[in-house]
Every structure is written in C-alpha cells, then in structure tokens.
C-alpha cells in the first residue's frame, strides 16, 4: 500500500516534470491556454460567485455571534477579510474547482485517450502533453488564483451584507477595521496558497485523465479519483502552508 502510494507520487512527479517542460512551448500558442482559462475559469464563475456570497454571509452571521460575546462586533470586517483571503477563499475555490473544472479536465482527456485522439496526435508527431495537457494545466494554474480572488471579494461583500445591512455595524468601522488589519503579507499568503492549490488540482486532473483506462468505467474511476485526491491534497497542503506562514 505504502509502496504503491510512493510509486504514484513518483509517477506524478515525473509527469509534472514532463508537463513543466512543455509549458513554454504551450505558452508560445497563447490561444490554446486562453481557451483553457476560459473553460476552467470563466465557466466556473457562477458557482464560485454564488458559493463565495453564501460562505461570506455564513461567516458574517457566525462571526457576529462570536464577536458579540466579547463586545467586539466591530472587528467583523477584519475577521471576515482575513478568513476569506487567507483560508476560505483559496481552499474552497480549489475544492470547487476540483469538482467543477477538474472533473471536466480529467474526463475530457480520458475520453480523448479512449477514442484514440491522443494516439492519433502521437502518430502525427504531435506530443499530446504539449498540445493537450500543458495548456490545460496552465489554464487551471492561472484560473484558480483569479477565481480565489473573486471568491474572497464576493465573500467579504456577503459578510458586509450581514454585518452592516442586517446587524447594523457601522460601515466605516467595518471597512476601516479591515483596512488596518489586512496587510500585503495576508494577501500574498492567500495568493501563494491559491497558486499552489491551482497547480495541485490541475496536475491531478490532467494526470488522472492522461493515465485513465481507455474505457467508460476507467474514465469514470479516474474522474472520481481526481475529486477525492484533489480534496485531500488541498487540505494537506493548506495545513503545511499555513504552518509555514506562521
């Protein structure tokens, strides 16, 4: 079991090296990458914005209840912003991305394998890693930080809706507390996390798709593995990065 897990880590690492080696040639064709940013990013916008809004509203409600116990309701803006930017934004965006775009990436590449499209590219002397995998990997890598930023902004707006509109916290207090407490270091922490999570989720999706058994069942299993592995890896990486930033 441990040996097989180690083998898989090795296999993913080798695949990552191969994908990274093809990223520059893929960037030479920006059209391919932009299309993937659209597929993975723009098409995930609605789910990201809706989730961000509701998560922010829940954070507003729970944060207000908790802070009110200590008479510190005015700190809600700061708490919501730090929570969204440093933790909830990157983590939840990555989990939603894995569910929405990661599955799509994995099944698309898996089906291309099952219908001989990847083999046909190989036969036409076109490396499928350069033409299919690297643009999708880059698309995810670029889209996740952008989505996380949108998630955090909408989330903060959701918390403001609850705190200011419903709970009658002074708007000036809400925003000024946030402004004074949130620094560039916090934004960088969220940004680095979302870049790492984006790379991890995209890599897992393209790896599983590329190595899926070329059958309907094989592609289905690979898609399931993509979601499960991405979720576990994101949470593990989140712990490691949070510990590193302390």
């Amino acid at each position: 079991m441990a040996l097989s897990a180690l083998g898989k880590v090795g296999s993913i690492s080798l695949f990552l090296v191969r994908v990274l080696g093809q990223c520059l040639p893929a960037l030479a064709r920006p059209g391919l990458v932009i299309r993937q940013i659209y597929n993975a990013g723009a098409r995930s916008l609605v789910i990201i914005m809706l989730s961000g809004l509701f998560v922010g509203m829940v954070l507003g409600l729970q944060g207000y209840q908790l802070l009110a116990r200590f008479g510190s309701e005015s700190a809600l803006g700061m708490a919501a912003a730090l929570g969204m930017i440093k933790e909830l934004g990157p983590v939840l965006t990555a989990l939603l991305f894995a569910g929405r775009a990661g599955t799509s990436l994995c099944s698309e590449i898996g089906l291309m394998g099952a219908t001989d499209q990847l083999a046909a590219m190989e036969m036409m002397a076109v490396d499928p890693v350069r033409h299919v995998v690297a643009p999708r990997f880059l698309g995810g890598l670029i889209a996740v930080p952008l989505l996380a930023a949108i998630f955090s902004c909408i989330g903060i707006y959701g918390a403001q809706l609850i705190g200011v509109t419903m709970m009658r916290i002074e708007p000036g207090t809400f925003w000024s507390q946030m402004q004074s407490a949130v620094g560039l270091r916090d934004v960088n922490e969220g940004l680095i996390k979302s870049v790492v999570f984006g790379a991890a989720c995209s890599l897992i999706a393209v790896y599983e798709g590329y190595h899926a058994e070329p059958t309907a069942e094989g592609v289905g299993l690979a898609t399931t593995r993509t979601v499960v592995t991405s979720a576990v890896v994101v949470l593990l990486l989140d712990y490691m990065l949070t510990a590193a930033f302390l």
Partner: protein
Amino acid sequence: MTDDDAVVVLRDVQYAIGTREIFNGLNLRVRRGSITAVMGPSGTGKTTLLRLIMGQILARRGEVRVFGQQVASLDRRALYRLRQRVGMLFQNGALLTDLSVFENVAFPLREHADLPEAVLRELVLMKLQAVGLRGAADLMPAELSGGMARRVALARAIVMDPELLIYDEPFVGLDPISMGVIVRLIQSLNRLLGITSIVVSHDVRIISAMADYSYLLSGGKVIAEGSPAELCKEKSDAVQQFMSGTPDGPVPFHYPAPDYFEQLLARTKACAPSDS
C-alpha cells in the same frame, strides 16, 4: 527483396501482452512503392503490428526497421521525425472532437509546416475534395457518420504527403460508392505519387483487387504470403479457410472454452433441486 527496397522490415519479432503472446518470430517486409495487405482472423494482432511499426509499442525481441531506422533505438524527437514521414488512418478515425473537419485536416500542417493561411486552406480543401467531403469542411466530427469520419481521417492522413501510409481497416462502415472512391484513392496515391501503403483489412475481395503483396497472419506468425492470386492458389487449409471464409478449419472460430455440452450439463446440475 533486399533491405534497400524495403520501407518496413520486421525480423523475428516477439511481442506479448502480459502472458498472452501476440507475435512469436514474425517476419515481414514492405517493398517501397507497393500496396501491401496484412490480413488475418480477428485477434491475431494486426493493429498491434501497426503500433509496432509506428513505435507506439516496442517488441520484446527482434527488430523493427522503418525507412532503415531501428524504431526501438530512436528517442522521442527522432521517432517524431520518422512519424512525420508516415500517415496513419485509424480504425475509428480518431478525429479531434473539439476541431471542425477543416481544422482536423489542417492540424498536421499547422503543427509541422509554416504555411501561409491561403496555401493551407487550398491544401486542406484539395484533400477534402479527394475524399468527397469538401462540403463538410465546417461540420464538427460529432455531426459525421462513421464512414464520413473515416474519410476525413484519410484526408488528414494524406495532407502531409507522407511516404508511407498505414490504413487500419479502411473499408469498415463505408457504403459501396465511398468504398470505391477510397480504393481508387489508395491506388492512385500509390501509382502516381509512389506512396508505399500498408492496408490491414479482412476484406479478401477488395484486397485481392488492389494489393501487390499480401501477408496472412495467424497464431502470431505469417502463415502465408505472396500476391493475392498466389494466396488464392495456396493449398494450406488455414489459408483456404480464411480466403473462403468458412468457420471450420485449422483456424478456430471459437475462443478457447470447455466442452459446450459438459458446460451446459454442469449448469443444469447446479440449477436442479437437491434430492434431500
């Protein structure tokens, strides 16, 4: 035929998938400028043979040479250079589903040739015209029938004007008109441009009409070879069985299985109510 005349040479090739042996001591040569047919019952490894030639899989033993180069010794870059000289038609077409018919045919040109858009367009339309699908240039692969998809794949296979064309079951699912056009196209590519062709097919009648030389595979080896006329005259039972399409003969129609009667009887016994 000497090695200089041969575009493809397989010498004593052995290949297995797991414990299942596909080829054991396979020898085959494809002469430059010829149409060579590879025939054999289902499951004899005809498609595997094509994958060996293209370097997609490697033989466990023996030698596979294409254009004089030993495929197993080539690195990825050299292998890709070799593949640029070869066109391959897949059994299912293998069109890229996110590209239109036009873009599918243009794909190899866009990847390997730095051509002005006008020249590229002309070339693609010329190849689509040859397979009778110029009018379908804007359709997506999902809008094509199986036969049309294979014709588009053929246009894509010939768009780079390859020296060697490999066809994996090119006639399956084609209507008689399309089949006639494709047969004539393969023949004219061969006669006019001197393209070497390897055709994997079950269709003895068509192969007899178009191939210069045929190989019949069975049991991981070549069991007969020669011109179609020579194969028809071959006395061997296995060859006659294949050429005439009869189920009884040395080539088994059934996958290895226990005795049919005993298996049915065992099932009946298992289902019967016990006496106690």
